[in-house]
């Protein structure tokens, strides 16, 4: 069991509870492309996570644990979507640079972007929240990185599993489901 609550004292961004309806969170896991195909036609909002946000059409929110990288990613995104009206808000945990909203998420839950993006989605007011490309199985990213299995953290191991399951039982309240991988097993399908 985690020793800490999900949040510390704040301050809270003003956008808390300012949204409603459903949200797709598109993360950088290796299942992103197949999960994206499942949600085509989705009418709600989209939140990109980390590198995935460089490419997602119609993105409303962008979460990253690395606020430092936003300017670089945004430069690529601007080239991809320059002809299209593109408006999104950038989110990160407190202390991050280059973002619009900083959330008081305790470090245990903020270390992995998929986890903290799920929490931010709930705090923004979205329900249901569907995870795409966040399998939490340590099998790599959607992009071709020439990586090997041993390069990745064990996102499916007991430590991460314990956090996802604690959030499921104590915080998500059934609001967050997943389309693939371990998170689908732990949180259920939409």
């Amino acid at each position, binding site marked *: 069991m985690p020793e800490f609550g999900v949040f510390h004292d704040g301050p809270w961004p003003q956008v808390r509870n300012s949204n409603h309806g459903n949200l797709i969170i598109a993360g950088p896991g290796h299942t992103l*492309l197949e999960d994206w195909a499942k949600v085509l036609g989705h009418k709600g909002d989209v939140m990109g996570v980390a590198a995935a946000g460089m490419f997602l059409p119609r993105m409303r929110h962008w979460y990253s644990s690395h606020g430092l*990288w936003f300017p670089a990613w945004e430069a690529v995104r601007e080239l991809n979507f320059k002809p299209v009206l593109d408006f999104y808000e950038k989110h990160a945990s407190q202390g991050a640079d280059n973002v619009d909203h900083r959330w008081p998420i305790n470090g245990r839950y903020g270390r992995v972007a998929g986890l903290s993006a799920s929490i931010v989605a709930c705090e923004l007011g979205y329900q249901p929240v569907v995870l795409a490309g966040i399998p939490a199985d340590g099998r790599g990213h959607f992009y071709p990185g020439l990586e090997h299995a041993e390069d990745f953290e064990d996102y499916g191991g007991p430590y991460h599993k314990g956090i996802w399951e604690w959030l499921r039982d104590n915080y998500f309240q059934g609001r967050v489901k997943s389309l693939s991988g371990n998170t689908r097993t732990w949180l259920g399908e939409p």
Partner: protein
Amino acid sequence: MTSAPFHGDLVTGDLPAIAGTCKGPATVIGPGRDVKSELSSFQVRGHVIAVTTVGIFLPRLHHWIMGVPRKMMAFKIARTAMRGVTNGHTTHAKEEGYNGRDIDVLWPIAGLHTPTAGHTAAVITLLLGYAPVILMGLPADDSGHFYPDAPINPDGLEQLDYGERRGKYQDAWLWLRDNFFEGRVKSVSGNTREWLGSP
């Protein structure tokens, strides 16, 4: 500068000094939908040539070839963010229509025969001196990219088809095969495998 060899109307001017200085096999890695599984299934031979977006993510590459050179600086900055370092490779593009300074080597190549970054990369890789050349992630079809660029709310945005319906792209691959590649370029997937053969 070396003098331009006879390549029909493909090479339109003097080649840069780097032309012909490389040797051995090279793998050209493009942004096709299945590039990740192709990299798992086929051996990357020789030097790595990244095509456009792929270069942001590959941990090691020798050359990075752009179809739209004005994107280079943003892509390099993103690569620095993703991979920590951005040196150790040379960037290339066609000189046609580009006056910027963000590319290391500009090539006098006719756009008529190199209408996409994939065509351009195959040609520049050969002109660098590499052979044989293996294409991965360059199927030249309508299967899309390794990233989810399909609009989630369809609004009529056009999905590029690099194969059948885009006749000029197919024509260019076939022209290059018949007039320049001389059997040195093969592909592991898609239309290019059909047109150029498997490695």
